[in-house]
């Protein structure tokens, strides 16, 4: 069950349209998540007809007090085109260029339908900025799959655009060794019940510790050679399946 965060009031208020600027973090990634002309026009029509911007524009304040946009640049542009003197802003208290950029990407990505090609460009951007990010964390950030990230990574490595890495950082920020692919063994016979089925509900690519400990324990406790061999082969099958 997920833990609920404490409910707090968001800092939302009207702000002088002309006093806002696009943040450098958003400028860097904006072109990776373009809005189509059709979507922009639809958004403009919706805002104009309703007379309001329903989702506040996300901003943070820099050291000089400037209000910089991390999400909602299109809504801001539209407000300027419509001649509105104020727009609703939500001030986010966030520090650190990489965290601000993550927020900029997350906020914009949730509003876009990117083509496959656009997604690959976004994945390439993430991998180039930090090749040690795991495929899983890049997939999560870009809204794509591990397999797509793996393909993009392989292309970038073969083209020399990123270096191959030996360790990767998981979503938990811990560093893991990049697993070496295991060659497929011959199929083993299962006795029909003595062996505990291996579970595939964890991301064993990088978080095998607990699961391996359980398997190793079983192997060591296995009463005879046949049991131990069956367990080892099951482990190999499992690793192969999650490769």
């Amino acid at each position, binding site marked *: 069950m997920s833990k609920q965060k404490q409910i707090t*009031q968001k*800092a939302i208020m*009207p702000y002088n349209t002309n006093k806002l600027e696009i943040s450098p973090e958003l400028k860097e990634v904006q072109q990776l998540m373009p809005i189509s002309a059709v979507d922009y026009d639809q958004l403009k029509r919706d805002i104009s007809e309703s007379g309001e911007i329903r989702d506040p524009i996300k901003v943070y304040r820099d050291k000089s007090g400037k209000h910089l946009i991390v999400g909602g640049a299109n809504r801001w542009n539209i407000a300027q085109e419509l001649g509105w003197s104020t727009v609703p802003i939500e001030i986010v*208290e966030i520090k650190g260029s990489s965290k601000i950029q993550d927020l900029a990407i997350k906020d914009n990505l949730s509003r876009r339908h990117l083509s496959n090609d656009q997604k690959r460009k976004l994945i390439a951007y993430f991998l180039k900025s930090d090749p040690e990010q795991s495929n899983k964390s890049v997939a999560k950030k870009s809204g794509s799959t591990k397999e797509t990230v793996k393909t993009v990574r392989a292309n970038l490595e073969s083209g020399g655009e990123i270096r191959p890495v030996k360790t990767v950082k998981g979503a938990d920020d811990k560093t893991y060794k990049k697993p070496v692919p295991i060659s497929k063994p011959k199929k083993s016979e299962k006795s029909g019940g003595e062996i505990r089925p291996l579970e595939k509900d964890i991301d064993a690519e990088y978080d095998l510790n607990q699961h391996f400990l359980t398997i190793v324990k079983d192997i060591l406790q296995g009463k005879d050679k046949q049991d131990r061999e069956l367990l080892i082969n099951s482990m190999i099958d499992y690793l192969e399946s999650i490769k």
Partner: protein
Amino acid sequence: MNICITSQKGGSGKTSFTILIALSLSSIGYRVLCLDCDPQGGLTSYLSKIDYKKKRKGIFDILTGDDNYNIITVERHGIKLDLIPADHRLDAIYSSLSPYEFELKFNDLNYDYIIYDTPPTVQGISRAAAMVADTIFIPADLSEGTINPTLYTIDSLKKIKKNAKVILLGYKVPDKESNAFKDVMSREFKESLGSTPFDTIPATVNIKRIVSDEKKITRKIIETILNAIEVK
């Protein structure tokens, strides 16, 4: 130096105490700016002569991106004060402001003291004022409904690592044996505050008449106020 006047209790004497402090400090030569942070605009109403029908350009405009601070100078019996007004427009935003809202706002202004008169809440604009304050005072009028909000305000400030001094307005040194209302209230307040520092403004100081400008603030009252806020 930033002074925050705050309390969750409405009508506890925040605006009155703000005026008393401002007049006292200005009378001994300090440059004082009062910030009306309450959407009711009570401080603005007491100090200025702005027509109630007119928009009061001030704190709301500053918080929503206007660089023109519209500081107005007011005078009470020869004592001058500067004021940034407030009006009802502040009601739309005051409770949800970021706690860091005032961090850079008034740093460049050349005042000895900036006094923030806040609305009856510990959230939003009040918290933002407390965050930048060098000193915080919690005025408390002696009434039954004031003890709990005062204690809650003290606790809320502790959560943001701020300490405050309570100022008991209309305090009377309690007679231990007496069951008269003021004696009972004075005793209860003292007990409830525990180790929280406090000071008192005696009942003999006619706060209402000074605040409404019917009476001039006297030397003796100024000394009482300056003692309470520990300024020489």
